């Protein structure tokens, strides 16, 4: 490991947040190309499956994290509980914000069909989303925060899967349509 690789390793070890290539180069007073080379060396050291710590590319930067191999022991050692899982309501709100960002509360409510105050509040509190200005009508807009990408292991926002992947299948859609039409007919007959 050359000196730059050592420096980069130390920076990633210390920094509580993923660090971008640009910031690494700036801190080490060198070029991004040199840092990339150093990261390549580090990657060899931290190859997944061989070490307890792995080098990850998340949230537009680089970060060291523990390998899941140590999860059980880590839970025993640290009293800090795991990140609590998301409720369905929170996950829906987060999904809407993630794909439509910026998204307003009324927009979220429209899609979910329910007012989403408390779920949005929790997401804000947990630092997964943050405010991002106001819409033309004065509603607060939300976008995902950096923590979202980090916790969900996303390199960048555009690495989220294509949203069309989550659309109901044509069969589901047909079934839903049939049910709706039946409801309408039943009503018309009554």
């Amino acid at each position, binding site marked *: 490991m050359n000196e730059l690789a050592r420096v980069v390793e130390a920076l990633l070890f*210390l920094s509580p947040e993923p660090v971008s290539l640009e910031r690494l180069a700036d801190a080490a007073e060198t070029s991004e190309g040199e840092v990339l080379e150093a990261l390549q060396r580090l990657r060899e050291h931290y190859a997944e499956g061989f070490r307890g710590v792995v080098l990850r590319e998340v949230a537009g930067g680089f970060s060291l994290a523990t390998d899941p191999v140590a999860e059980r022991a880590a839970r025993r050692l640290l009293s800090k509980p795991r990140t609590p*899982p998301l409720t369905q309501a929170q996950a829906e709100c987060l*999904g809407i914000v993630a794909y439509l960002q910026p998204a307003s509360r009324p927009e979220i409510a*429209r899609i979910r069909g329910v007012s989403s105050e408390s779920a949005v509040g929790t997401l804000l509190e947990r630092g997964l989303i943050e405010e991002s200005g106001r819409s033309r009508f004065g*509603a607060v807009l939300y976008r995902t925060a950096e923590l979202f990408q980090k916790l969900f292991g996303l390199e960048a926002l555009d690495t989220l899967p294509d949203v069309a992947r989550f659309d109901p299948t044509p069969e589901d859609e047909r079934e839903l349509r049939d049910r709706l*039409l039946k409801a*309408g007919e039943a009503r018309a*007959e009554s």
Partner: protein
Amino acid sequence: MSVAELDLDLEVFQGPFDLMLTLVLREEVDLLEVELADVVVAYVDHLERKGELDLEAATEFLVLIAALLELKSRLMLPGEEGDALDLEPGEAAEELLARMLEYRRYSGVAAFLRERLEAEQGFRYRSAPLPPHLRRVSVDLAEPSYDADQLAEAVGGLLRMPPKLDLGHLARPRVSLESRLEHMRSLLSSRGSFTFDEAVRGADRLTEAVTLFALLELHKAGEARWSQSEAFGPITVTMGENE
């Protein structure tokens, strides 16, 4: 209190507003059975008790109740021989379908996110405090990063005097659904039939809206029927089978 917590005590549903919406959307409560007027009344009562208008909450309520009213009134449209939805493209059903498909998309996204978070749990990041000598922010390293105009603009915005809030439209006497139902029932019993325009002659828009809603309720109860020969033509209301 937010709209979500608005407590409802209706014939088919008791509980908070947002739960009702969820159930309607998931088809566990039939929208046709929900007395939306009572929901509005409960909300207005709530506003009155509270004595202040939370604009964001009120907007949200209006958006939701408007969507529900629209859907419900479309669901209530009478079908000719039960095939109205086949003859027409079934606009209401299509819209509801579109909404449900959109909702399903994000419910799929939600499932994906929950799984992903679960799978990522094993990767833990270090969150140790920095060594003491690195904790102090170094002023020497600071570079200009903000525009002072943002502050001037924020302070300028705070100088704005609020417009006098016009509560005239809220203070206006409320039109009750009961009074409009009564009005139409008496028209029906005295004349046997009337046009909708006659029922709302000289009335303001709110009264018109409530009257239309009352008419939907009469139709639902089988007390009245209506016919309209062409779009935007006069609506003739006649006695229903239950009378």
